[in-house]
C-alpha cells in the first residue's frame, strides 16, 4: 500500500468508528483528538480494525504513534507497505 492508500484505509476505519464526524476537513498534521471526539476505547478500535483488516499488530508502546494522520501513516508505512491495496 502506498502512503495515500494507507491514509484512505485509516479514513475508512475512522468513518466506521466515528460515524457522526465529518472527516472531509481533517488536518493531517493535527492530532485526531483535537479535531474529533475520540477516547481511549476509540483508539483501541483503530488498533483492532488494523489487526482485523490488515493483520497489522500495533503494540501498546506504539499507540502514541497514532496521534495524528501524519504520524499514523508514517508509522504504518513500514508495516503496511507490503500489504496489497
Amino acid at each position: 500500500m502506498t502512503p495515500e492508500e494507507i491514509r484512505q484505509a485509516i479514513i475508512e476505519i475512522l468513518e466506521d468508528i466515528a460515524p457522526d464526524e465529518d472527516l472531509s476537513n481533517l488536518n493531517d498534521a493535527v492530532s485526531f483528538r483535537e479535531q474529533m471526539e475520540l477516547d481511549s476505547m476509540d483508539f483501541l478500535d483503530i488498533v483492532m480494525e488494523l489487526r482485523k483488516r490488515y493483520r497489522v499488530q500495533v503494540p501498546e508502546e506504539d499507540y502514541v504513534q497514532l496521534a495524528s494522520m501524519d504520524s499514523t501513516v508514517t508509522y504504518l508505512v513500514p508495516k503496511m507497505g507490503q500489504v496489497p491495496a
Partner: protein
Amino acid sequence: MISRVNQQDLPDEMRVVITGIGMTAPIGNSLAEVREGLLSGRSGVRPYEIRYFGKTLAGVCEFEVNRHQSKKDARRGTRAGSVGIYCANEAILDSGIDFANFDKSTVGVYVGVTEHGNVETENEVYQIKGYDYDTSFWSHHHNPRTVANNPAGEVALNLGITGPHYTIGAACAAGNAGMIQGLQMLRLGECDLAIAGGVSESIHTFGIFAGFASQGALASHSDPAKASRPFDKARNGIVVAEGGCLYTLERLSDAKRRQAKIYGEIVGYAINTDATDFVLPNAERQAQCMQLALKRANLSPEQIDIVSTHATGTTNGDSLECDAVRRVFGQSEKTFINNAKSFIGHSMGAAGAIELAGNLPAFSDRVVHATINVDDLDPECDIPGLVRNQPREVNRVDYILNNSFGMLGINSALIVKRF
C-alpha cells in the same frame, strides 16, 4: 414483611403515579401507535432469519435509533441500550418534565431484563471464528456491552443521569419488576423521578430461538400474523419479539405540584416465587401473587376491570395461567381478560411494561382490547370475561391488573388505578 397498609390511605408523598410513557413494539413506536394496533387487530409478527437457526418468525421493532442517540454510541453500545435510550427519552418528553433543569442526581433508572449479554457474546464468538478463535480479535467493547447493568447504564450515560441505575433480572416478569423497583425507590426517597420498565433485544440471539425450539415451545405458522395465538387450541408456542417500554414514575405530591398529566396510579403489586420447577408454571402460586396484589391494594377481584394476562401461547403456560385467573376472577362478572402477545409476540423483559401500557388508554376510551387469533378456543382457557378477537366497549375502567410471569418460577402482578 409484607405491607398491610391500605395504599389508598397513604399520603401523596407515598403514592406513585405514571406520568410519562416511551415505548417501541413491533406494532408501533409510541403509545398511540401501539394502542391503534391493539384496537384494530394488527399483528406485528413477521418472517425473520437469524444465523445458525435460520428462518423463523419474530416481532421486530423499527424505531428511529438516532433520534436520541449518536451513531457512534449506537455502534459502541448494545441494541438493548438503544431500545432503552429511545424509550427513556420518549417517556421524558411525554411527561413534560423540564429535564434540562431537573436535578439528575435524583433520577433513578430501573430497567427490567429477561437476560443480557447473550447477543453480544454470540456476536463475538461468531467474529473470532473468522480468526481461528484467536482471542486477540475479541472486542474490548465486550465487557461494557455485557455487564448486566448495560441497558440501564446506557440510558444514564445518554441522559446525564447521575442517580442510581441498574437492571432488574426477572425473566419475563421483568417489565413489572422494573416498575415495582421504581415505585419502591420513590417511596424510600432514593430518587425523585424513576425511569422504570423493561427492554429486550432477545431476537438478536439465535440461542433464544434454538432454546425454545429444543424445548418444543417456539411457535410456527404458515401465516406469521396467526403464529402467536394464546388460548387457541392450535397454539404451539412463543413468538420471540423485541421491544421496550419505560415509564416516568413520580410521587403524587411531585406530579401534582407540576400539574403533570397522570396516566394512572400504581396501587398494588406483588412478586412471589413458585419454587417448584425451572420452567413449568405453578397456577396456585400465580393465583397467590394476584391475590397478594389485590390485598395490598385493598381491592376485591370484582373491582378489577381488566386483567392483562401473561399468555405466551404455550400449551401448558396458558392452561395454568387460566387456571390461576379462574381461581381469582372466576366469580367476577365485571372483569375482562385480554393479552397483547397475540399481536406482538413475547417481548421478554419488555413484555409486562408494554402490555400494561397498551391497556392504560382504556381508562379514558373505555375499550378493552382483545386477544386475537382465538379461532378455536381451548376449553381450558375458556375463562369468564375473555375478550376474543374484537375489542369490547365497556361502561368504565377503574382498575387494571397486569400479570407477568417468568422462568425459575417468578410471578408478578401490578395494579393500576384510573386517576
